[in-house]
């Protein structure tokens, strides 16, 4: 089924295994945008970016953003997209067209992050973004390609736009990825075990003490981020959870993983903390989890037999 362009936010996927397939899918999409007076953003590797810019005659309305900086953590990437769109709107550009070449390493943690990013892109924007995610079949692993296949409503190929029969509602996707495989660090005994949390200040003191011993080379910023994140999730459980709040912390030289569990139902909205919140919304309950997601490398929330668990992890630099 071929469809015509709609004014709403679009989020399409292009799968390619050759230079021609890439150009054949992406160049018409971008050219349509330029012809309609839109601006174009390329977030690609150098070769792909150069090929696309060349195909578009190096139009001056093309902006190139560094791929490594944009695709770090899902909320930041979404925030970057949002900021760019807002900036262009201020300049009188009514719509932005993005071609982003996705490059994740395929580790489990990166993969869930990536699914969140893709799912977040579907819901997070006003009608001013046309987004094309490009996947190099030769470079990406199967899990990433499968995830990409279910998170895009439309597929692009050779100038055509085709409805994706494998598309799944983003909320369902997020729920589906929210029961994580056991973490390798989590397999051993935890460094910190708290079964009935009482004072957050005491928890923070313990976290600092343990990291100081187990990861003495962790940067002060990373330690601060971990303390803020653990405090926020634990405080959330104290405030909104049911029964005793249980905390487990595993710390190695490279990384810290923390789980916070209670007997309640947890938060049902899989988007909590993913979308950027306006800065005047400090009273919003989601603000704390949003902050946590800015500070962590991994964040998952899932139901267990006994209740609800949030797991977060930070890599030390």
């Amino acid at each position, binding site marked *: 089924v071929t469809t015509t362009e709609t004014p709403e936010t679009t989020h399409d996927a292009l799968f390619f295994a050759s230079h021609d397939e890439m150009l054949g899918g992406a160049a018409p999409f971008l050219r349509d945008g330029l012809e309609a007076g839109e601006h174009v953003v390329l977030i690609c590797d150098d070769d792909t970016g150069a090929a696309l810019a060349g195909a578009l005659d190096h139009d001056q309305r093309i902006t190139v953003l560094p791929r490594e900086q944009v695709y770090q953590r899902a909320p930041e990437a979404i925030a970057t997209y949002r900021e760019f769109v807002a900036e262009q709107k201020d300049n009188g550009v009514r719509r932005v067209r993005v071609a982003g070449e996705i490059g994740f390493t395929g580790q489990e943690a990166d993969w869930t992050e990536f699914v969140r990013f893709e799912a977040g892109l579907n819901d997070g924007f006003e009608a001013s973004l046309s987004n094309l995610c490009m996947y190099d079949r030769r470079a990406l692993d199967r899990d990433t390609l499968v995830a990409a296949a279910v998170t895009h409503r439309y597929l692009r190929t050779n100038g055509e736009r085709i409805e994706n029969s494998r598309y799944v509602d983003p909320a369902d996707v997020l729920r589906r990825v929210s029961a994580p495989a056991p973490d390798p660090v989590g397999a051993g005994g935890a460094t910190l075990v708290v079964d009935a949390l009482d*004072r*957050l*200040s005491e928890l*923070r003191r313990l976290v600092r003490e343990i990291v100081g011993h187990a990861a003495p080379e962790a940067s*002060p*910023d990373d330690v*601060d*981020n971990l*303390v*803020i994140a653990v*405090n*926020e999730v634990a*405080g959330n459980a*104290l*405030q909104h959870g049911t029964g005793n709040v249980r905390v487990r912390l595993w710390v190695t030289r490279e990384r810290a993983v923390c789980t916070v569990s209670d007997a309640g139902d947890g938060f049902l909205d899989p988007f909590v903390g993913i979308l950027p919140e306006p*800065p*005047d919304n*400090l*009273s919003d309950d989601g*603000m*704390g989890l949003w*902050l946590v997601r*800015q*500070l962590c490398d991994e964040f998952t929330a899932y139901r267990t037999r006994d209740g609800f668990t949030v797991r977060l992890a930070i890599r030390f630099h």
Partner: protein
Amino acid sequence: VTSIREESLDLGWDGHLLLLHRSEDERRDALAAWVLRGLDLGERVVFAERDDDPPDRSLPNVLRQRGVDVATASEQGRLHALPAREYYPEGGQIELLHQAREEGFSAIRITTETRTALTVLSVRAYAEAESTLEFLCSTQPMSALCQYAPGETPGGVVQNGYERHPAVRDAQLQSRREDGTLLLAGEIDQQNSDVLEATLRAATANTAEDMLWIDLSRVVFLEVHACRALVMGTQHFRDDGGDVVLHSPTGGVRRALRLLGVHLQPRITLVRERP
């Protein structure tokens, strides 16, 4: 290294101090530290307690548990117990200082709990006594630790307490205000952000200043609830044209403030150092 750091982060035990305690352990720890400071300085420590209190609650017992020779201190008049009525003499608490001077002390510190004070004073008389004490502590060699249990004290009394004390302490947070500056030290989270908010309201309630400097250099932790308290506690002041400058935050504190957009709120500025 730790002790030096802790010491420099502490805003001290002198002046007219509001102690907010949420448990008996917290009250005893703070009370003992405050008394020991006075005994170290050679000051007279005056205290009043309720007759119907259980013995383990009493100051002599609290001090004995911490190894203080209470009998000798009492004998020498360094530790001086008074009935609640005499703690509030008719001529005002300046008399307690005169008395101590006659007995050779150059300075005194006095303490009681609100629940004790309210057995002999009306709420209004107590508010007046706090005002007088605020004046005495800023002009005389006198300091006072006023012990408030926020959960068990009428709201109006607690609010007046915030306004009458330039220094406020709970188990995690200390603050001290002087002309247009509020010094904060310690940690602020969801379990004490109400203290910060009330402190800010009091600091901005009856001020002639149009700018409030908030020194964050001794704050080692804050989060979302604390940021909300910073915004809400200064809302009135800013709505009336006042400006708030947050300065000298440490790394993690600065990051939290920026990520949460506190510095984007109207009339709130965040600077690395006070110029």
